[in-house]
């Protein structure tokens, strides 16, 4: 081997060595940086304050927990925000399972600046306390949340980590549109039956079976489906929550609360009664055979085809399917919700008073470089000017102002708003859904969104809808429901954080597994086998530590009663 080749060898070796060192160096460096950042930003805003410059362009990354579509790059509203506030939003929307996504994020310790609310992130130390930041830099937010300040404090350490996205109200509240749970039924079914008002489960089933008997297929030739449900991923409430409503309880999730004491109902007789009815439906061929194996997309596709006569669900959950029906102008196949009960002596409690949506909305992560700038940005958006931009759109483009100062939309503008593709280029719904927002009424007397503006709501109704509401002598969709009583202090119990890894959260998973395994079996069994399957289910349930789950919820209910009563 000559001298030159030896030199070459050494050169290549040192190159390789350098490369290796670089790899090692990088990984080590990253770790160091991560911890340094954490301690830095969790210490608060000290160093960040001087660095903030309110107009300097900045990109804020955000993770949003709903599976929206990305807006177009030249989206009108986001562009306006960028031009006026200097903020470019780099949003990541959920794909797949949220808990899994958050688990991976925590395991990697790598967070976006703004992050969707979840108790898991608090226990992982992923988010910074916000109360000082809000006090110092965000007067609008402070005012917005003033009424709810105590409730927003985390039960574990009394810090505020999240800015709830829904449920903070100002001024008069008009709720015209109903987005909560109900038994939904197609408008055509009601029309054909002469607009009856089903009160009980039996009335409802009769309506559906009569219609299905007369119309075995839809106008475009597909077989009609009488009733469907969904039990996929975390969206199990369409299958599991109906019994609590049928017995006149409000939506507390997996428990019913009587006199301040929560108890699980999934394996009790009140649940058995409901699934027995579904079993009857199934054996009469009215229940969707694939109800229990379908995923969320298949569920939506089925509803958007107009074949499904009814289901129990929350309106927002099947909203995308209804939007498709509206854009195809199949208004007769959209739905009206009814507050059914087991018998008419039970008063329905489906509609509830708005509660602050705890454990929802945005928090600021420990990785955020400039928390002050971010909170100032969110605060700036709370200005009515931007609230109107995000909710109504641009004056003269998305809405008009009448002589009396009332906002309204022209028929063309309304038409545009129904087009999902147009919205991606002209609305900022993805971000606005998760951001803090005003609800109720603006200082100029206009409602905070077009659907709540009484005149605009009525004008935006389709002729079929006007006819239907007139037939029932109702003005809004919420008139079908009993007016809600004052909320109990602890309400709602479904917001209780079960704490990751605790016995309660393990029990909750197991309860869910048992229900998803046995309830479909029970519903799909022959009528004479129903009871034996049900007994198997109750046995399986008995082996789970249900008490751990109930205890955690009761514990939190007592905590809320103690800490929230004087709020």
């Amino acid at each position, binding site marked *: 081997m000559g001298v030159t080749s030896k030199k070459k*060898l050494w050169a290549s*070796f040192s190159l*390789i060595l350098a*490369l*290796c060192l670089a*790899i*090692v160096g990088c*990984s080590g460096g990253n770790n160091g940086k991560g911890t340094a950042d*954490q301690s830095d930003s969790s210490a608060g805003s000290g160093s960040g304050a001087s660095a903030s410059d309110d107009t300097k362009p900045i990109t804020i990354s955000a993770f949003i927990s709903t599976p929206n579509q990305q807006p177009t790059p030249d989206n009108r509203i986001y562009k306006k925000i960028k031009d006026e506030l200097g903020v470019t939003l780099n949003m990541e929307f959920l794909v797949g*399972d949220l*808990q*899994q996504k958050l*688990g*991976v994020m*925590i*395991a990697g*310790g790598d967070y976006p600046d703004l992050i969707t609310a979840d108790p*898991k992130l608090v*226990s*992982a*130390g*992923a988010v910074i306390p916000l109360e000082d930041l809000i006090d110092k830099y965000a007067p609008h937010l402070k005012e917005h949340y003033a009424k709810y300040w105590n409730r927003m404090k985390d039960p574990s350490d009394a810090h505020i980590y999240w800015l709830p996205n829904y449920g903070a109200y100002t001024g008069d509240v008009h709720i015209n549109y109903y987005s909560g749970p109900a038994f939904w039924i197609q408008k055509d079914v009601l029309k054909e039956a002469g607009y009856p008002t089903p009160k009980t489960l039996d009335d409802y089933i009769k309506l559906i079976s009569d219609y299905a008997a007369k119309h075995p297929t839809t106008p475009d030739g597909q*077989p009609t489906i009488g009733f469907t449900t969904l*039990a*996929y991923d975390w969206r199990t409430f369409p299958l599991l929550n109906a019994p609590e409503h049928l017995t006149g309880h409000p939506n507390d999730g997996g428990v019913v609360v009587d006199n301040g004491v929560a108890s699980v109902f999934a394996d009790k007789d009140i649940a058995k009664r409901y699934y027995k009815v579904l079993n009857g439906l199934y054996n009469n061929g009215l229940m969707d*055979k*694939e109800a*229990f*194996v379908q995923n969320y997309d*298949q569920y939506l596709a089925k509803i958007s085809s107009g074949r499904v006569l009814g289901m129990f669900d929350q309106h927002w959950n099947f909203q995308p399917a209804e939007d498709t029906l509206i854009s195809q102008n199949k208004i007769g196949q959209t739905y009206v919700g009814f507050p059914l009960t087991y018998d008419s002596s039970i008063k329905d409690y489906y509609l509830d008073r708005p509660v602050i949506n705890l454990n929802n909305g945005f928090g600021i992560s420990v990785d955020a470089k400039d928390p002050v700038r971010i909170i100032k940005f969110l605060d700036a958006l709370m200005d009515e000017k931007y609230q109107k931009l995000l909710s109504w759109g641009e004056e003269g483009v998305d809405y008009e102002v009448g002589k009396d100062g009332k906002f309204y939309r022209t028929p063309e503008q309304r038409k545009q708003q129904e087009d999902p593709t147009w919205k991606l280029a002209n609305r900022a719904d993805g971000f606005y859904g998760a951001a803090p927002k005003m609800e109720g009424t603006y200082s100029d007397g206009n409602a905070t969104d077009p659907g709540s503006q009484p005149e605009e709501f009525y004008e935006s109704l389709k002729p079929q809808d006007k006819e239907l509401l007139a037939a029932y002598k109702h003005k809004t969709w919420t008139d079908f429901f009993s007016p809600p009583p004052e909320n109990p202090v602890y309400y709602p119990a479904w917001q209780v954080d079960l704490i*990751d*890894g605790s016995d309660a*959260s*393990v029990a909750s*998973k197991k309860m869910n*597994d048992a*229900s*998803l*395994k046995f*309830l*479909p*079996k029970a519903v*799909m069994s022959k009528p004479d086998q129903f009871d034996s399957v049900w007994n198997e289910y109750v046995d399986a349930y008995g*082996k789970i530590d249900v008490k751990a789950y109930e205890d955690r919820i009761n514990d939190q209910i007592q905590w809320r009663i103690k800490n929230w009563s004087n709020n």
Partner: protein
Amino acid sequence: MRGQKQLMLMSLPILIYVALFSYYPIWGWTMAFQNYKPARSFAQQEWVGFKQFKFLFSDDTFLGVLRNTIGMSLINMVSGFVTAIVFAILLNEIKHKLYKRSIQTISYLPHFLSWIIVTGIVANSLSVDDGIVNTVLMKLGLIHSPVLWLSEPHYFWGIVGASHVWKEIGWNAIIYLAAITSIDPSLYEAAEIDGANRYHKMLYITLPGIRSIVVILLIMNLGWILEAGFEVQYLLGNGVVIDWSQTIDIFVLKYGLQVGNYSLATAAGIFKTVVSITLIVAANTIAKRFGEDRLI
């Protein structure tokens, strides 16, 4: 030693790479013996000994989960092996170039589809609403009413196995096809002179000719026996079939990652690794007994 210096130098980067990405992460196994909470330093973690392993093995669903994992994995491995070898041998017999190429291309294309697409296709074909499987079976008169394939626990393994075969058969066959081409053509000629027909040649020349490749691949695949997959079972499974569809990975996702119990997930990972290493060593020893080529 002297003569090997350059070789040793050249293998150094690989050693560093392996140390960094394969051995250093083993440090993370300590998590399995803690009640690991993210964002705390090592010293602040709480040590719990074998608690996570105890939870894993005392949970009454875990045995079922283990059975599903091994069961589906075996089905996938055996059916994947057998079909790919048979397919490769049959394909090798086709002399028409264009025909052979097109079949090969068509058969390995599904390999490049992601599981989410494949499971979508599977779910659609098995649907009771005009799914192709039910339609065909009804037309043939084999069944009278559509079968709800995906809500029958006992069909689940079969469905998963069949999906695997459909997706991977062409891709797995490639390596056997390559091995077949290396068989000495004079063997076939000699056999022909001795009066062997086509089937004799397949059985007595082609098959033994690729035997060593088969054994090595078998040993390597045994190491993955606890990797029955996650996506297929997760995407096709539902509450009704959970007793037969849940694999270790799904169990870990639900009771480990989703409830924030990372220690449990690590414990399950260690368990999988130990079983895999044991199986590989065992298979390797057996191969040695039979005088076959070995991996190590």
